[in-house]
């Protein structure tokens, strides 16, 4: 895989665009990093800290599942990896100081002895986990804290903005953080922004049984990391305007969009909405230059891939006869539905549950149309299934905090082309 580059493909729904009028067109930019090597020989070392909530509410099934998931994590690691475990309630304790994963059984025994107790010193525990990773920070490893909690930070620093900004600060110094929120009582308005600012993933475990699966997805993602510090620069040609980027990625200081990490074998879909000038039939036009910047794993410097996007114009009737690529309308719909989810959350926060239900209803209807046009597509099916469940719970319960979490988390996953399956 060393030296292999991601593939950047650019599509419009039909191969040509209609001539003779100004138009708005959605463009799908698909970034596909190379497949991981089958033998896993080139996998990156992990330097991981599990930061596990043991406050009172974690008792019972939640703690058992968390321990099971942590033990699973230990099993997946190699002796060259490092692991530390920090547990916290109102007191923070480094249960396992950072060490190579050599004595797997010993590690699992320690983890299984943890039982649930008092309140939640989330911030300090995160700092301690970060320190365990930082002490052995290695540019060739994935250096990450995995923060697992079911509650609200109520001891020590509890200000959300401040914790998020600190997590961003640590990320800028080489350590990323992912978060796992369990159940319905934690603060997703802390855990999602935290992971996003800290270069990690935000996961929601609705049921304790899902814990192991989420850990598996997180670990897979870490092992498959292809490139980080990913950015996308867009230079439209004269007369062309980028009117929207449906993923709502943040802009960097240099006017680029900040993209999530690239994972080997998993395509990342970005959709741009462009306003194009009028052109005559038969004319070709270079409408956009793209620059994808990323730092490949184990490389020191950034790489830049450049792509120019050219389209041909034809009479409207001819364009109509061309086959439509359902991948483009699917990408557009999933991103619009991510926005619909965030809009529903805003409505819920204003107390307007009817509006939230309407927005999700609309999104559900669009997802049904997508399913009709792509009957075999698993993403389309999963999307309409989730929206169907959400319309039901929103109509019945309105202020349900679990629905709010599902909305927020799935919006985040859709935006970054990540799958939780």
């Amino acid at each position, binding site marked *: 895989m060393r030296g292999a*580059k991601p593939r950047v493909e650019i599509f419009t729904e039909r191969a040509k665009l209609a001539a003779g009028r100004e138009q708005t067109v959605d463009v799908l930019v698909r970034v596909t990093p190379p497949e991981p090597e089958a033998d896993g020989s080139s996998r990156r070392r992990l330097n991981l800290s599990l930061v596990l909530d043991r406050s009172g509410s974690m008792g019972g099934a939640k703690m058992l599942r968390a321990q099971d998931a942590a033990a699973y994590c230990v099993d997946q690691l190699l002796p060259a990896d490092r692991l530390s475990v920090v547990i916290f309630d109102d007191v923070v304790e480094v249960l396992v100081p950072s060490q190579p994963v050599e004595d797997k059984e010993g590690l699992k025994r320690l983890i299984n002895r943890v039982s649930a107790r008092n309140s939640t010193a989330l*911030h*300090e525990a995160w*700092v301690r986990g*970060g*320190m365990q*990773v*930082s*002490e052995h*920070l*290695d*540019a*060739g490893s994935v250096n990450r804290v995995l923060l697992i909690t079911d509650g609200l930070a109520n001891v*020590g*620093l*509890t*200000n959300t*903005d*401040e914790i998020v900004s*600190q997590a961003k*600060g*640590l990320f800028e*110094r*080489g*350590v990323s953080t992912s978060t796992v929120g369990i159940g319905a009582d934690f603060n997703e308005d802390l855990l999602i922004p935290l992971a996003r600012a800290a270069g990690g993933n935000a996961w929601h475990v609705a049921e304790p049984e899902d814990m192991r699966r989420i850990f598996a997805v997180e670990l897979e993602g870490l092992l498959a990391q292809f490139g980080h510090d990913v950015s996308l*620069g867009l*230079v439209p040609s004269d007369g062309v305007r980028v009117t929207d980027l449906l993923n709502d990625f943040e802009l960097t*200081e*240099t*006017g680029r969009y900040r993209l999530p990490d690239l994972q080997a074998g998993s395509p990342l879909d970005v959709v741009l909405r462009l306003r194009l000038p009028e052109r005559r039939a038969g004319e070709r036009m270079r409408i956009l*230059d793209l*620059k994808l*910047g990323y730092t490949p794993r184990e490389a*020191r*410097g*950034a*790489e*830049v*891939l*450049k792509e120019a996007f050219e389209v041909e114009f034809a009479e409207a009737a001819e364009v109509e006869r061309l086959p439509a690529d359902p991948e483009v309308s699917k990408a557009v719909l999933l991103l*619009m539905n991510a*926005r*619909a989810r*965030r*809009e529903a959350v*805003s409505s819920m926060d204003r107390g307007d549950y009817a509006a939230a239900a*309407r*927005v999700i209803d*609309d*999104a559900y209807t669009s997802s049904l149309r997508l399913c009709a046009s792509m009957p075999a597509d698993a993403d389309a099916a999963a999307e309409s299934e989730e929206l169907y469940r959400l319309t039901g719970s929103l109509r019945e319960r309105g202020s349900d905090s679990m629905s709010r979490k599902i909305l927020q988390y799935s919006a985040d996953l859709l935006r970054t082309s990540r799958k939780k399956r």
Partner: protein
Amino acid sequence: MRKWLEAARQRKHVGAAGLAQEAARILSESGGAQQARGTVTELPDERTVRYYITEGLIPPADEKQGTASLFGYRHLLQLLVVKKLQAEHIPIRKIRELVTGRTERQLEKLLGAEAEGGAASKNEALGYLESLLRKGPQPSAPPPAAAPPQASALTGPPAAPPRETWARVELEPGLEVHVSDGYRAPQTEGALRRLTQSFLDLLRARAGHVPRRGGK
């Protein structure tokens, strides 16, 4: 790149030509001139340096050696950053904004030279976290020098209730829309449609109340 910068930190360069030469050497030796797909950043020469100074992209020399200008690390760093941003097709105006008033650390960061060294960033991450612990939970962000501690925007109680500001937009004579600064326009087609519809309904309802000329 870091290695080359470390070596250059204490050096002075005589004249625009000297500065250009040093930057060109670093770019070619560190591979910094080599972009993906074989496009190569043009190496800077004396003319480029003079042009950048005129354009305000690099500060003028602040020392002299005889009649020649003497440039230092800051100048070198800024020149390298400008070349890098230019190769990324960032407009001069934007580059000027990005480099002016930056610290050397920030410029190194823009150059991507900062995150490279494992050892350096290791201590940095650890030092950062230790400073967070020392700082403790209560005033969590250093308040601005002039402001009293309780005015900290992040931790202290707000001094005054947040003020809401509204913008007045005139759509046509006699019709204004007031928009709160916290307002976010709907992003989905459905919500936009509903908003447009309620606006149209409002206009129609008002139109019903307007006395017709010559009526009654």
